[in-house]
């Protein structure tokens, strides 16, 4: 792994008295798709959100394509540093968080226009291209509430890609969707992986992880208990916690 895009070292996060992350080390290489799996409450989302500091961490260090995040940064005082990081990583949320007052194409075009300073026409061309890539070119003028959950999530992916992120973070991208829509997202994410897009996917769906990721990290109670190639970890788990988690998921 020569070119590390995302790096976390000794990450600790607590919420009140509860420790969410207890010393996480993680590297993600360029072009790699890493799945973070684990039982609910294990800190997967917190770990993901540490990479763009939407959830602050209390100790440790995060490096995103050369930009550093420290504990105790402040939205106001460190706005410039935080923006530098957020411009390098894209985020896809579990419940999409599309902007309900903007059409699908404007959802995608808004940040390129306002943040990257593209002209209206340039931003729209870019957004149209991305909507085509996620198979939604005919829904460009629709408002989010007129779209299905799967369509909304695809717009959200296009919106994140519009900023040409070095890495894309996906937080449980399929868990708010019913199973038949999971396939739409799976197809889009696989196609992205084929273009060499670096991604971190948090999921508790083992099947989804198996189909999109090259490497998997198992997070249990705030610690990474096992990490390695997908088929090794998921088919031949060495760690007891991993086996317990996989057994529970397969029953479900």
């Amino acid at each position, binding site marked *: 792994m020569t070119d590390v895009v995302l790096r976390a070292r000794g990450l600790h996060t607590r919420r009140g008295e509860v420790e969410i992350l207890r010393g996480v080390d993680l590297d993600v290489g360029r072009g790699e798709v890493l799945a973070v799996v684990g039982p609910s409450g294990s800190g997967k989302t917190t770990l993901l959100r540490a990479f763009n500091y939407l959830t602050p961490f209390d100790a440790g260090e995060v490096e995103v394509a050369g930009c550093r995040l420290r504990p105790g940064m402040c*939205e106001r005082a460190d706005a410039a540093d935080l923006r530098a990081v*957020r411009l390098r990583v894209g*985020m896809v949320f579990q*419940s999409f968080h599309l*902007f309900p*007052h903007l059409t699908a194409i404007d959802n995608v075009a*808004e940040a390129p226009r306002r*943040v990257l300073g593209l002209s209206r026409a340039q931003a729209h061309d870019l957004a149209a291209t991305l909507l085509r890539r996620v198979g939604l070119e005919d829904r460009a003028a629709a*408002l989010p509430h007129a779209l299905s959950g799967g369509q909304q999530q695809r717009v959200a992916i296009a919106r994140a890609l519009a*900023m040409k992120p070095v890495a894309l973070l996906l937080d449980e991208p399929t868990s708010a969707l019913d199973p038949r829509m999971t396939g739409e997202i799976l197809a889009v994410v696989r196609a992205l992986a084929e273009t060499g897009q670096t991604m971190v996917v948090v999921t508790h769906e083992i099947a989804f992880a198996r189909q999109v990721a090259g490497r998997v990290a198992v997070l249990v109670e705030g610690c990474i208990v096992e990490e390695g190639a997908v088929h090794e970890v998921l088919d031949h788990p060495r760690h007891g916690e991993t086996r317990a988690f996989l057994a529970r998921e397969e029953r479900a």
Partner: protein
Amino acid sequence: MVLVALLAGHPGAEEAPPAPAGDGLARVRASGLLRWGGDLQGGEPYVFQDPHDPARIVGFEVEIAEALARHLGVQARFVQNDWQLLIPALERGDIDIILNGLEVTEARRRRLAFTQPYFAFAATLVVRRDEPAVHGLADLRGRRVGTLGGSLSHDFVAAVPGIDVVPYEGTQEPYLDLEEGRLDGVVLDDIIAERYGLVRPGLRDAGAVGEGLYAIGMRRDEPALQRAVGEALGTMQRDGELRAILERWRLWNDRQAALAAGAGAPAAPGGVGITAVQLDLFLRATGVTVLISLLSMALAVTGGLGLSLARRYGGGPLRAAAGMYVELFRGTPVLLQLYVLYYGLAPLVAFGAFTAAVVGLGLNYAAYEAELYRAGLEAVPLGQTEAALALGMSRAQALGRIVLPQAFRVALPGIANDFIALLKDTSLVSVITVVELTKQMTITAVYLQSWLVPGLLCAALYLALSYPLARLARRLERRLAPAPA
């Protein structure tokens, strides 16, 4: 027997028929009360609260009323009424007589029966000492002259073309505004001018601009009461009782002596029907109402936005100040705020009346708009801000491009409703001398001696303004409502 009586066309004479309208005297005698109407706001020396015993009312008219009642063998009872509403109150039967500086005019004669006058006054022009060149109303063309709404003095001023007439409700405020420079002259009865105007060192007497008479008003269809009250007043004039009362109140002068000697009453201008001039005044007043509404709403919408942002994103002191502002302006009457802004703050900032109206209503409604924005901001999920920040937007961009447009949609129907409420609340600014639609209605009503036609016209104009707004609010509500995340 009933049938027989009906056929004979003679209702039973012993059965008391409803008292005929002309029998006001019998009503007064039967109840033992002479109910006389006046307005305590007119102040000293007419009828006012005794400063040493506020439960008691005193004044030269109180003494006249008590003497009249004594002559009629009954008790006098004072009934408080807005001065401009005394005649409707009489017609409704709330009072038996009006005894409160009511000037004899031709228009009022058509509606009321007057006794002989009990007082003669001169409408007196008061101006500032620093304007020695002003000698009469003619020198004040193109300038602002204050007077009491609905009074004969008002008619005197209005009869001079080119003067901007400013009607007031009370006797103190016009002189205060004259001192402040918000008026250039005040015309009011000499009694008022002496007690409220000329006591101020910066003001001087610029002479009489007309004369008038006070008389007691009664219903035209009560001749027995008219006769009895007239006779009682006549007795008081002959035996010197009236003179004694007026002297006690330092009101006796040559004019009263001439009146007692039977000098004729000067002619007073009379009212006419609703004319093109009146309609034009109404439309102009409507324009004032619309303009005040628009400007104060613009102030309220921007001010409210600032307040709600300060409350949500500001630091501790700023947040606390914004919160206090909202509670202060929501928790006190807007009428009080207007008084304080216009009269209370006059020594510090002398706003013009129109500016004070816009600022007063705008500041008040800003508090309400702030609450609407707050509800709107709270309705936008945190995920929206996170999504915007995750895309690299600055906090200001996230707020301006993502959060506020959504908050505004939530707040908009409420804002539209508030605009309708504000449109109607503009009627309150008449207390600080702005002639808007409702004030114009009362002026016209007093002028015409009729409230029905001006009232209906006024209502129609308000409706014409508010109904389209209400429709617009509905449409906005429908268009903006469905946006489930």
